[in-house]
């Protein structure tokens, strides 16, 4: 039986985050305490008086899931229970890379025994699809709408993996729900390593990205296969593995399935810039 009871979840059909969160908690097992940031996952899993969580779970605020988890970890250490109980902090991309970045950096630097999972759906989906630091270049969000003077988000995605790796923590990795086995292996690996760990999981959002719920897994695969979302691992600050994509698929294949990129399809120049992003990833990570 899953430790995430979907009966008490109000997630949208095809929600990538729900799939990922369920995998993470089930691999972690029942001796786990989760600190969850404000966001979609928190909202759809903890509607009072119900809860989808079969493990102890706490939500405090948007930016402090890493700090709350730090307190849980310190308390378990004080009680002598840290060996038996795993601590997971989790947040969306905004709660991780924007408002939560400071607390996350603090948690890393203190070397605390916590796995931080970022469910990356590349925008503030919970509040209605606004741009975050992890929103990719040229994306149409409600705060980066394309128009006469704009082709969407003007800035590239924040290099969060490198930022985390620069803290020289034992383990930093990216995963995608399009590659379930890889994801599961990385969660297991992360939980077997002592010290702070960071796992960033690519999770499509049918509502925000404007695609059919049946396309979630396909899009999650294509993001990786085009080179736009590299699946990599860093250990102690060094890149140690990357999932190879010997024959990268054209980025249009990925973009054309999603409403958030629709405005780009006839814009050769901007498409080219996306293609270049993929190429740069392939080169720098050796995909």
């Amino acid at each position, binding site marked *: 039986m899953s430790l995430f009871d979907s009966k008490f979840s109000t997630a949208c059909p095809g929600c990538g985050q729900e799939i990922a969160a369920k995998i993470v908690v089930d691999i972690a097992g*029942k*001796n*786990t*305490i989760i*600190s*969850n940031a404000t966001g979609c996952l*928190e*909202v759809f899993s*903890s*509607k*009072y*008086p119900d*809860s989808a*969580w*079969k*493990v*102890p*779970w*706490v*939500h*405090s*605020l948007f*930016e*402090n899931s*890493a*700090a*709350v*988890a*730090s*307190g*849980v*970890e*310190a*308390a*378990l*250490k*004080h*009680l002598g229970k840290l060996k038996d*109980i795993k601590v997971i902090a989790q947040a969306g991309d905004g709660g991780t890379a924007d408002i939560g970045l*400071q*607390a996350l*950096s*603090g948690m890393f*630097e*203190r070397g605390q025994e916590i796995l931080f999972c970022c469910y990356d759906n590349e925008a503030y989906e919970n509040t209605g699809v606004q741009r975050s630091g992890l929103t990719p270049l040229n994306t149409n969000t409600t705060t980066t709408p394309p128009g006469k003077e704009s082709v969407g988000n003007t800035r590239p995605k924040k290099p969060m993996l490198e930022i985390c790796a620069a803290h020289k923590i034992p383990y930093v990795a990216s995963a995608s729900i399009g590659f379930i086995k890889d994801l599961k292996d990385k969660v297991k690996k992360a939980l077997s390593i002592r010290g702070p760990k960071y796992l960033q999981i690519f999770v499509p959002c049918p509502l925000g990205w404007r695609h059919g719920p049946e396309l979630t897994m396909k899009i999650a695969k294509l993001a990786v296969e085009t080179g736009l979302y590299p699946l990599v691992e860093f250990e102690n600050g060094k890149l140690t593995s990357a999932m190879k994509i010997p024959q990268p698929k054209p980025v249009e294949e990925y973009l054309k399935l999603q409403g958030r990129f629709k405005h780009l399809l006839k814009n050769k120049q901007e498409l080219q810039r996306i293609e270049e992003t993929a190429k740069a990833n392939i080169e720098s990570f050796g995909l």
Partner: protein
Amino acid sequence: MKRFLEGSRGVAEAIRLCKPGVISAYPITPQTHIVEDLAQFVADGELKTEFVNVESEHSAASVVLGALATGVRAFTATSSQGLLLMGEVIYNIAGMRLPLVLTCANRAVSAPISIWNDHQDSLAMRDTGWIQLYAENNQEALDFHIQAYKLAENKEIMLPVMVCMDGYILTHGYEPVDIPEQKKVDQFLPPYNTSYKLDPSHPITMGHLAEPSCYMETRVDIQNALNRALEMIPQIAKEFGTVFERNSGGLVESYRLEDAQYVLVAKGSLAGTIKEVVDNLRKKGKKVGMLRIITYRPLPVEAIYQALKNIPNVGIVEKAISLGAFGPLFTEIKAIFQNKKGNPKISGFVAGLGGRDITRETVERIFSKIEKRQMDLEFIDVKQERLNEFVRF
């Protein structure tokens, strides 16, 4: 044992005796000496606690929130901007019903930046559901922390307590304080044991999403718990007196009110200065007195009413202002007397903002003011020549 100590050290000694399992703090003047002393206790092996150094007050408050949610007693201390930065978590801790004890080393708020004492910081947290106690001297600051844990952790209360002590005046002031024996503190304050915690053997969800169908009740619950605290605080003070053989704590303190005609109401270290002025004026035959608010939240409405109902002239002296309105305590005490028998003439005075010293002469002047006429708001010791100076075009 009686010792001559800095106020911050006294608080650190109290916390050591209360044995929190997790301490987390971020440095801010004038709170620093408290957490430095605690860090030293931990370094010397005198206190078995996890001392978590963090990157902000927001995280300090979040760490102790996490620790309490895991069922472990916790402590933090802050001041001024630090408390404001914690603000969001301050609400959260009360809303989650976690029994944190926090020291607020009272300090003014920016801008302009001021490291000196007033009560604007803790007053900004007045409506959060926290219990607020104000210490007059360092002995009280020490005692209140021990009482605070007992109060916060009571199953009928389960709310955080902010022990407010005047920055510099108390935190950096040396006074004789009696440090209780560990044995007595253990007798007074049992270990924190709760089933309301994150525990894999009984998994619970904390920090739910509450829809309009259930949010309001959470606020009524807090209000009711605060009302229960009004009964609990004097009981705890009484028990404290029995165990430690000294009077400390409670809701309010009446000072020479019996036949008083002119009474000032105050909080914190200022009350000591007022007491001295009261004694001096009494020697000159003036019928003056003082009411000290020890517990500001929950507001001891009945105790204040009973203390002041026969006093013809009352002046509220506050180190805080609700800008655009009045002193907060003035407004509240006026409200207490609305539609009640006995209606003192109540005046409001705002003094000592940003560390401006409230001298004995100032206090005497305020006494003479309430003899003359009622006023809702008067700023005390304002330099007229410095007004309109700050914004230059």
